Structures are given as C-alpha cells and as structure tokens.
C-alpha cells in the first residue's frame, strides 16, 4: 500500500464518520518537491532496473577477467605470480569434478555457520541479559572492553592447542570472533530501547520479564540482525584463519597449501569460492531480515532523493 492510497482512503474514512465534522485528521499528502541538483542522465534512468543493473554488473566482471586474461597472454603480467582466469577455471572444474572443492567448501561453511550460531546466540543472550541489571552491566563493562580489545586472531594458536587441529578449533575461533561483537551490539541496543515504551508497559502493570519480551527483544532485533551481517563475515574469518594455522581440509587449507606451492590459480579458486559463500550468506540474512522485520520494510518511495 502506498502512502498515496492511504491518504485517499483516510479522506473517505473521515467523511463517512459522522463524528469528524472537522477535517481534522485529513492532511494533504506531502509530496517531496525535491529540486534535483544534478539530474541523472537518460541512460542512468533507463538502466536503473534490476535487469539493467544486472547486465552492467555482469559486463563489468566479464571485462575485468578478459583484461586479466589478455594481460597474461600478452606477457604484461606473469601467470606465475597472478594466475590467469583460464587457469583458474581449469582448476575450478577439475577440483569440482574430483569432489575436493565441494568438500573443502563444506568444511569451511559448516565451521563458520556453527561458530556464527553459537557465538551470536551466546553473545546476544548475554548482551540482552545485561539489560536486567544496570549494576552487573557496569561491573562487567571494563572486562568486556578489555577482552574485546584483544585481536581475537591472536588467540588462534592457543585455540588450536586447546581444541586440537580438527573441526572444533575452527568453530571455537569463529565463536571467539563473533560472541563479543554480538554481546556489545545486543547490550547497546537494549540500552537504547525507548524508555517511554518501557514506562508505558510498566504503567499497565507489566512485569520486568514482560517488558523484556514486549519491548526490549523486538526493539533490539533490527540492531541484532544488522550485527548478523558483520558476524557472518567474522565467522568466516575465524574458520579460514583456523585452517591456515593447522588443518587437513577447508578453503583456508586449500588457499594456504596452494600459495606455499606458488599455485596461484588454486589460491584464486579458494578466494572466489569464499567470496561467493560470504555473498550467499549475506543474502540469506537479508532474506531472514525481511521475513522477521516486516515493519521495517515499508516503502521509501516518498523519500527525498538527494
């Protein structure tokens, strides 16, 4: 429903309502009269559709790889140091066919996702929980800041010592990277929750638990889901760095072992697959956000374009 139709139906509504003799609630629909400083050209306007943008984006990627390939073939770049798109494609096909690439990808993705889920869940719950007691929150704040200021990647060697070289250590690393981000984001959001909404519920006689469920959780959801986007990236970092240090499988392992053999094409395959995985997971979260927060998805058609 657009704002326009809403306003019109409101007019109908009020005129049918005998109580409203004065057109009090009827206000003219405000249309932003934005004087554009620089008008987008005819081409930009025509191409600014899903299809148009997609074509341009694909074209840009194609041009990039083509230039790369040409540069390598012409001898401007050394294939030994930068790889070549044709070689990358060959490696990709071969490792897909022998099944090693899907297995490596699977390992990394599962490590990242499990690490993301555990870290984000623990962090969010703890962060939201801090809302219950300002005293405890103030008490633990310096500790959180201190722990957060350690670059978590520096923990990787210890994590490997503690959890071994297998699957668990990668998950643990991903958890260590995501948990504090989640905690801080959730706590911040809970603290910023509208105190007036909480007062309103309190005046209705709501308990603290009830206020938590009805105000704190829903009003922090946008921030928490926004944090998911950051954390999915961090979880991948954790998994890959863990694999760099010691592993038998995974995309991190693939990249690390290939680069020590100067097999640049394989390194690129690992990197591109990682990019693709991150891209995909980002969109999964985007999709989830649209389902969970329908009230945030109200159209912005009336927004002023600057």
């Amino acid at each position: 429903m657009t704002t326009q139709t809403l306003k019109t139906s409101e007019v109908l509504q009020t005129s049918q309502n005998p109580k409203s003799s004065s057109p009090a609630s009827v206000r003219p629909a405000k249309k932003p009269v934005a004087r554009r400083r620089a008008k987008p050209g005819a081409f930009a306007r025509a191409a600014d559709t899903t299809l148009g943008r997609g074509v341009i984006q694909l074209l840009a990627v194609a041009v990039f790889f083509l230039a790369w390939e040409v540069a390598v073939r012409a001898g401007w770049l050394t294939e030994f140091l930068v790889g070549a798109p044709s070689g990358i494609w060959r490696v990709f096909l071969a490792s897909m066919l022998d099944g090693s690439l899907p297995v490596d990808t699977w390992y990394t993705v599962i490590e990242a996702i499990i690490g993301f889920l555990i870290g984000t869940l623990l962090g969010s719950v703890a962060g939201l929980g801090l809302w219950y007691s300002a005293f405890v929150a103030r008490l633990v704040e310096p500790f959180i800041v201190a722990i957060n200021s350690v670059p978590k990647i520096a923990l990787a060697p210890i994590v490997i010592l503690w959890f071994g070289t297998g699957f668990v250590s990668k998950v643990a690393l991903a958890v260590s990277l995501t948990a504090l981000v989640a905690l801080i984001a959730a706590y911040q959001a809970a603290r910023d929750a509208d105190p007036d909404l909480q007062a309103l519920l309190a005046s209705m006689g709501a308990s603290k638990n009830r206020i938590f469920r009805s105000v704190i959780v829903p009003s922090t959801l946008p921030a928490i889901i926004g944090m998911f986007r950051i954390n999915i990236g961090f979880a991948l970092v954790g998994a890959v760095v863990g694999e760099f240090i010691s592993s038998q499988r995974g995309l991190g392992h693939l990249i690390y072992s290939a680069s020590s053999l100067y097999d640049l094409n394989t390194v690129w395959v690992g990197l591109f697959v990682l990019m693709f995985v991150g891209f995909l997971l980002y969109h999964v979260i985007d999709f989830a956000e649209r389902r969970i927060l329908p009230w945030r998805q109200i159209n912005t058609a009336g927004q002023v374009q600057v």
Partner: protein
Amino acid sequence: MTASSVQLSLDGIRKSFPGKGGPVPVLDGLSFDIYERDFVSIIGPSGCGKTTVFNVIAGLLEPDSGTMTFRGEVVPGLQGRVGYMMQKDLLFPWRTVLQNVMLGLEMKGVDRAQALDTAREYLSTFGLSGFENAYPKMLSGGMRQRTALIRTLIMDPDILLLDEPFSALDYQTRLYLEGVLLDAVETFHKTVVLVTHDIDEAVALSKRVVVLGNRPTKVKSVHEIGLDARSPIGARSDPRFSDYFQTLCGELEIQTRQRAA
C-alpha cells in the same frame, strides 16, 4: 452523590532528584483531590515537575514522602489502573494498529479471541477500521494519536493520565481529537488527569484546573471551570471562556514576574 466523591487523593507528596549539588527538590508537599468522573487539568510553568506528578500517580516513580489514597485505600501507585498517554504516541513500531490496540488487553491477560473482538469494535467506533494491519509508520500523526487513545481507553482504566497528548499535533487535528476524547470520556465514564502547558486546552476541556507553582512545586490554586458546553469548539466560544483564560494566564504571569524580580 458519587460524582463528587473523592477518587484519588494526593497528600503531601515530596520528590527530589539527585543533582550535582545534592538532591534537587521537585515536588514539595503536593496535595490535591481528584473526584470520580472528574476532568482535571494540571498547568504550571515549564519545568515545574508536571510529568513527575504523573509518574508518581502512575506508580513509575516512588515519592520520597506523602501518601496517595485511591478510593479510601492507601496505595503506592496506580500501576495497571491508569491509562497513560504522552505527547509521543508511543505506538510500538513492530506492531500493527490492531496489535498496538490489543497491547493493554494482553497485559491484562484477556483471552485472545475476545481481545481481538474488542479491539476491532473500538477501532470501528473511532473510525480506524481498514487500518488494522497498517504499521504506525504508515499513519498520519493524528491517526497515530487516535490509535494511542484507543489503546488507552480499551484497557478500561480507572484514571486516564494524559501528558500533553495533543501538543505535537496541528491545531485542527488537535481540536478534532479533543472532541473525540471528550466524547469517549463521557461515554465510558472516565476520570481524566490532563497535563498541559496550553491554558486554552485546559479551560476548554476540564471541569477543574490545578495550577502548580514554580519548582519546588506546590499547588498554587484550584479553579472550577463552569462551562456547560461539552465540546472543545463550543467551550471556546462560550463568553466566560476568556474570563477563565485571563484568570489562569494572570496566575501564571505573576509567577513569571516573581521569577524575573
């Protein structure tokens, strides 16, 4: 006669807030009565602690001393018995209009199907049917405040606490909603306590006006408003309206001069 019996009585309410140089007294022995089915406006100079009075009545703030008596019974606060409405509509952005209206019923633990029926009925009474599934963001300011009013009324509170509920709206919308409020109060037999900085609104709507002094606040005077017209526009065109208006203005003006001296 029940109409004039005391419903809520505040007696010697004191409240101070911690400040930089020790506690800052805000309420300094505040006492006044609210009758059954009363419409009391509280006016006073800005920053005199009107909202604090409210939060004390609503049970959101504990007074340092003093007692509140509700229908003969000393109570700490009126949680769950008051309907609270502020200048901000305080609609939950993640709830639809219908869900917002049902909020109070949910808190009371009313059966869901029944709550739905009641909510739909109220929405249609107040001309908002068709907007049940709209989110607050999609509504105009007047409609949002109307939704907030319905949410307050549907809980069937003993006392409506209105804290400058219409001051963010344009004049026409405000007149309209004042009318809606008066009708509703009449229909549902409610007691209303209205905090406003708008003398005009206070005279037009109330049966009595409580004037507060400067901080630390005491009750300065209580005025009976004897206008018969029970509509915001009718009251404003009553010849006695301007007399009341002048009196109350005078009372606030004296305070300004005192402060300047």
